[in-house]
């Protein structure tokens, strides 16, 4: 088995390993299409519905056209709210919403295509990757 071929060089903006997955995460992903991540040092009351992780690279947050890689699944980023980067870099926190929106409803949302979220498992890698070349946006599609 070979890794998916990467056609352009990618910049790793964020790299982390999932350490724990809360009991309600499956319900959030399955019923709401929402995945909440927090850094492993977050307050305990946030752990039930969060996937906790420990980053080794935390240089920036995503922007539209970037790729979220979670447990080997690659998901394109559609939209990013105004406070996503600060949340992610400071707290390891991000709210993924797989609702297909191309504009973030809430300032903390990072929107992904419908049905793309996977239920993470402890040990999974979570990364945010930026293509080295010009960023493809939905408007560029024919």
């Amino acid at each position, binding site marked *: 088995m070979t890794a998916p071929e990467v056609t352009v060089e990618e910049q790793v903006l964020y790299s982390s390993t999932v350490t724990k997955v809360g009991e309600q995460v499956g319900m959030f992903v399955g019923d709401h299409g929402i995945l909440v991540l*927090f850094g492993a*040092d977050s307050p305990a*009351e946030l752990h039930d519905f969060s996937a906790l992780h420990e980053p080794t690279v935390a240089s920036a947050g995503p922007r539209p056209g970037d790729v979220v890689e979670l447990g080997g699944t690659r998901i394109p980023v559609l939209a990013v709210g105004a*406070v996503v980067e*600060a949340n992610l870099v*400071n707290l390891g*926190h991000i709210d993924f919403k797989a609702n297909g929106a191309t504009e973030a409803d*809430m*300032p903390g949302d990072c929107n992904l295509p419908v049905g793309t979220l996977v239920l993470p498992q402890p040990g999974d890698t979570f990364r945010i990757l930026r293509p080295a070349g010009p960023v493809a946006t939905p408007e560029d599609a024919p």
Partner: protein
Amino acid sequence: MPDYKSVTISKGRGGWGGPLTITPTADRPLIYSVTGGGIHPVAAKIAELTGGEAFDGFKSSAPFDKIAVAVIDCGGTARVGVYPMKKVMTVDVHATSPSGPLASFIKEDIFVSGVGVSDVVEK
């Protein structure tokens, strides 16, 4: 025993909910800041005016029944509902409205958003 005072916290521009009156007590003294980068200025102002104890939720944890008010910088999905669900008065510094899986717990008498330092006044 500290002499606690009350503050009124109103929604800021684009915000939702409130106003809330916060009065710490000896049993619930904590102004619990669950925000990036340490104690948020809004939490510091509430602590200063009330005599409550500013507490950084990312440094250590506190039981819910010790919290007079939680100050969050939530973008609308997760933290926004957790503290209202636990019946803890909640102040979001971002201008969010009820949303997310926990939206049903977010009521005007327990949650206020879009709050800046100038929205916290002595009662």
